[in-house]
Protein backbone atom coordinates (compact mmCIF):
# COMPACT_ATOMS: atom_id res chain seq x y z
CA UNK A 1 0.00 0.00 0.00
CA UNK A 2 0.96 3.63 -0.38
CA UNK A 3 1.22 5.66 2.81
CA UNK A 4 1.58 9.35 3.48
CA UNK A 5 2.28 10.81 6.90
CA UNK A 6 1.31 14.14 8.40
CA UNK A 7 3.46 15.25 11.34
CA UNK A 8 2.19 18.03 13.62
CA UNK A 9 4.34 17.29 16.66
CA UNK A 10 7.21 19.51 17.64
CA UNK A 11 10.50 17.60 17.94
CA UNK A 12 11.13 19.43 21.21
CA UNK A 13 8.02 18.37 23.09
CA UNK A 14 6.42 14.97 23.56
CA UNK A 15 7.67 12.25 21.24
CA UNK A 16 5.14 12.25 18.40
CA UNK A 17 7.81 13.20 15.87
CA UNK A 18 10.06 10.32 16.90
CA UNK A 19 7.14 7.88 16.91
CA UNK A 20 6.24 9.07 13.40
CA UNK A 21 9.76 8.34 12.15
CA UNK A 22 9.75 4.86 13.69
CA UNK A 23 6.33 4.22 12.21
CA UNK A 24 7.63 5.23 8.78
CA UNK A 25 10.53 2.81 9.12
CA UNK A 26 8.15 -0.04 9.99
CA UNK A 27 5.86 0.86 7.09
CA UNK A 28 8.79 0.41 4.70
CA UNK A 29 9.97 -2.76 6.45
CA UNK A 30 6.53 -4.28 5.91
CA UNK A 31 6.81 -3.72 2.17
CA UNK A 32 4.74 -0.59 1.75
CA UNK A 33 5.86 2.65 0.18
CA UNK A 34 5.79 6.17 1.56
CA UNK A 35 4.61 8.75 -0.91
CA UNK A 36 5.48 11.71 1.25
CA UNK A 37 5.86 12.96 4.82
CA UNK A 38 4.33 16.38 5.27
CA UNK A 39 5.21 18.50 8.30
CA UNK A 40 2.66 21.10 9.39
CA UNK A 41 2.44 23.64 12.21
CA UNK A 42 4.98 22.91 15.00
CA UNK A 43 5.93 19.76 13.09
CA UNK A 44 7.95 21.95 10.72
CA UNK A 45 10.51 22.49 13.50
CA UNK A 46 11.62 18.93 12.81
CA UNK A 47 13.44 20.26 9.74
CA UNK A 48 15.64 22.67 11.66
CA UNK A 49 19.38 22.44 11.08
CA UNK A 50 19.97 24.46 14.25
CA UNK A 51 18.42 22.30 16.96
CA UNK A 52 20.90 20.83 19.42
CA UNK A 53 19.81 17.97 21.65
CA UNK A 54 21.75 16.90 24.75
CA UNK A 55 23.99 13.86 24.21
CA UNK A 56 21.77 11.57 26.28
CA UNK A 57 18.66 12.41 24.25
CA UNK A 58 17.85 11.34 20.72
CA UNK A 59 17.21 13.96 18.06
CA UNK A 60 14.07 13.05 16.07
CA UNK A 61 15.47 14.88 13.03
CA UNK A 62 18.23 12.25 12.76
CA UNK A 63 15.63 9.50 12.41
CA UNK A 64 13.87 11.39 9.61
CA UNK A 65 17.13 12.26 7.92
CA UNK A 66 18.09 8.55 7.90
CA UNK A 67 14.77 7.65 6.23
CA UNK A 68 15.46 10.22 3.56
CA UNK A 69 19.02 9.01 3.03
CA UNK A 70 18.31 5.26 3.08
CA UNK A 71 14.88 5.12 1.47
CA UNK A 72 14.57 8.46 -0.37
CA UNK A 73 11.52 9.35 1.73
CA UNK A 74 10.33 12.79 0.70
CA UNK A 75 10.21 15.18 3.67
CA UNK A 76 8.23 18.36 3.02
CA UNK A 77 7.75 21.28 5.39
CA UNK A 78 4.60 23.37 4.92
CA UNK A 79 5.90 26.74 3.78
CA UNK A 80 3.45 28.94 5.67
CA UNK A 81 4.05 27.10 8.97
CA UNK A 82 7.79 26.96 8.29
CA UNK A 83 8.11 30.71 7.78
CA UNK A 84 6.23 31.44 11.03
CA UNK A 85 8.54 29.12 12.93
CA UNK A 86 11.67 30.63 11.39
CA UNK A 87 12.34 27.66 9.14
CA UNK A 88 13.77 29.09 5.92
CA UNK A 89 15.60 27.49 3.02
CA UNK A 90 18.19 29.46 1.02
CA UNK A 91 15.59 30.88 -1.35
CA UNK A 92 13.31 32.10 1.41
CA UNK A 93 16.19 33.45 3.50
CA UNK A 94 17.28 35.54 0.53
CA UNK A 95 13.72 36.61 -0.33
CA UNK A 96 12.98 37.78 3.22
CA UNK A 97 16.51 39.12 3.83
CA UNK A 98 17.26 36.86 6.76
CA UNK A 99 20.88 36.18 7.74
CA UNK A 100 20.88 32.46 6.99
CA UNK A 101 18.88 29.41 5.99
CA UNK A 102 17.76 27.23 8.88
CA UNK A 103 16.65 24.02 7.17
CA UNK A 104 18.29 20.64 7.14
CA UNK A 105 18.96 19.76 3.46
CA UNK A 106 17.07 16.47 3.83
CA UNK A 107 13.89 18.55 4.00
CA UNK A 108 12.24 20.72 1.36
CA UNK A 109 9.76 23.55 1.74
CA UNK A 110 6.56 23.62 -0.24
CA UNK A 111 2.87 24.52 -0.19
CA UNK A 112 -0.21 22.76 1.11
CA UNK A 113 -0.76 21.41 -2.39
CA UNK A 114 1.82 18.76 -1.48
CA UNK A 115 -0.42 17.56 1.33
CA UNK A 116 -3.44 17.54 -0.99
CA UNK A 117 -1.44 15.55 -3.53
CA UNK A 118 -0.32 13.14 -0.79
CA UNK A 119 -3.96 12.52 0.24
CA UNK A 120 -5.00 11.93 -3.35
CA UNK A 121 -2.21 9.46 -4.08
CA UNK A 122 -2.15 7.47 -0.84
CA UNK A 123 -4.17 4.56 0.48
CA UNK A 124 -3.43 5.66 4.01
CA UNK A 125 -2.96 9.08 5.57
CA UNK A 126 -1.55 8.72 9.07
CA UNK A 127 -1.33 11.76 11.35
CA UNK A 128 1.06 12.22 14.28
CA UNK A 129 0.19 15.01 16.69
CA UNK A 130 0.88 15.85 20.30
Amino acid at each position, binding site marked *: *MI*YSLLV*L*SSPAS*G*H*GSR*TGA*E*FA*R*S*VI*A*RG*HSIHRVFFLDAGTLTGSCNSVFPQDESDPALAWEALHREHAVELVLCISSALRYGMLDETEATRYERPSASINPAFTVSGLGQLVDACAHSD*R*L*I*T*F*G*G
Partner: protein
Amino acid sequence: MILHTLNALPSSAAFGDCLKLLQPGDAVVLLGDGVYAALEDTSPCDELRATGVELFILQADALLAGIDRPAEGCNSIGMDELVALTERFPRQLAWY
Protein backbone atom coordinates in the same frame (compact mmCIF):
# COMPACT_ATOMS: atom_id res chain seq x y z
CA MET B 1 -14.17 1.37 10.72
CA ILE B 2 -11.69 3.73 12.31
CA LEU B 3 -8.33 3.37 14.00
CA HIS B 4 -8.14 6.08 16.66
CA THR B 5 -4.68 7.01 17.90
CA LEU B 6 -5.19 8.63 21.26
CA ASN B 7 -2.31 10.81 22.40
CA ALA B 8 -4.06 12.93 25.01
CA LEU B 9 -4.49 12.88 28.79
CA PRO B 10 -7.71 11.36 30.14
CA SER B 11 -8.55 14.83 31.54
CA SER B 12 -8.33 16.51 28.12
CA ALA B 13 -11.05 17.67 25.77
CA ALA B 14 -9.54 15.48 23.04
CA PHE B 15 -9.99 12.40 25.23
CA GLY B 16 -13.67 13.18 25.86
CA ASP B 17 -14.33 13.93 22.19
CA CYS B 18 -12.66 10.70 21.14
CA LEU B 19 -14.69 8.71 23.66
CA LYS B 20 -17.88 10.23 22.28
CA LEU B 21 -17.11 9.13 18.72
CA LEU B 22 -16.01 5.55 19.36
CA GLN B 23 -18.15 2.69 18.18
CA PRO B 24 -17.83 -1.08 18.34
CA GLY B 25 -15.63 -2.26 15.48
CA ASP B 26 -13.23 0.67 15.95
CA ALA B 27 -9.85 0.30 17.61
CA VAL B 28 -7.99 2.68 19.91
CA VAL B 29 -4.23 2.83 20.27
CA LEU B 30 -3.02 4.66 23.37
CA LEU B 31 0.26 6.48 22.87
CA GLY B 32 2.07 9.50 24.31
CA ASP B 33 -0.03 11.03 27.10
CA GLY B 34 -2.88 8.72 26.13
CA VAL B 35 -1.20 5.79 27.90
CA TYR B 36 -2.50 6.97 31.28
CA ALA B 37 -5.92 5.70 30.26
CA ALA B 38 -4.45 2.20 30.71
CA LEU B 39 -4.15 2.60 34.49
CA GLU B 40 -6.29 -0.14 36.03
CA ASP B 41 -9.29 0.79 38.17
CA THR B 42 -9.64 4.31 36.82
CA SER B 43 -12.80 5.71 35.30
CA PRO B 44 -11.21 6.75 31.95
CA CYS B 45 -10.05 3.17 31.51
CA ASP B 46 -13.49 1.79 32.38
CA GLU B 47 -15.17 4.28 30.04
CA LEU B 48 -12.89 3.26 27.18
CA ARG B 49 -13.52 -0.44 27.74
CA ALA B 50 -17.28 0.15 27.95
CA THR B 51 -17.31 1.40 24.34
CA GLY B 52 -16.54 -2.12 23.11
CA VAL B 53 -13.61 -1.05 20.93
CA GLU B 54 -10.40 -3.04 20.58
CA LEU B 55 -7.86 -1.45 22.86
CA PHE B 56 -4.10 -1.28 22.34
CA ILE B 57 -1.20 0.54 23.95
CA LEU B 58 2.15 1.37 22.39
CA GLN B 59 4.59 -0.52 24.54
CA ALA B 60 7.52 1.92 24.40
CA ASP B 61 5.26 4.80 25.46
CA ALA B 62 3.71 2.74 28.27
CA LEU B 63 7.16 1.80 29.60
CA LEU B 64 8.32 5.42 29.44
CA ALA B 65 5.33 6.40 31.58
CA GLY B 66 6.00 3.63 34.10
CA ILE B 67 3.04 1.50 33.07
CA ASP B 68 4.59 -1.95 32.84
CA ARG B 69 1.25 -3.68 33.30
CA PRO B 70 -1.51 -2.00 31.30
CA ALA B 71 -5.11 -2.55 32.40
CA GLU B 72 -6.78 -5.80 31.46
CA GLY B 73 -8.14 -5.77 27.93
CA CYS B 74 -5.50 -3.34 26.76
CA ASN B 75 -3.01 -5.13 24.50
CA SER B 76 0.59 -4.02 24.38
CA ILE B 77 1.91 -3.56 20.83
CA GLY B 78 5.11 -2.53 19.10
CA MET B 79 5.56 -0.38 16.01
CA ASP B 80 5.16 -3.28 13.58
CA GLU B 81 1.79 -4.13 15.07
CA LEU B 82 0.74 -0.49 14.87
CA VAL B 83 1.52 -0.54 11.14
CA ALA B 84 -0.44 -3.81 10.88
CA LEU B 85 -3.43 -2.06 12.45
CA THR B 86 -3.22 0.70 9.85
CA GLU B 87 -3.27 -2.03 7.18
CA ARG B 88 -6.41 -3.52 8.69
CA PHE B 89 -8.28 -0.25 9.31
CA PRO B 90 -8.87 1.86 6.18
CA ARG B 91 -8.78 5.18 8.03
CA GLN B 92 -7.05 6.68 11.05
CA LEU B 93 -8.05 9.60 13.24
CA ALA B 94 -5.42 11.20 15.47
CA TRP B 95 -6.44 12.68 18.83
CA TYR B 96 -3.86 14.81 20.62
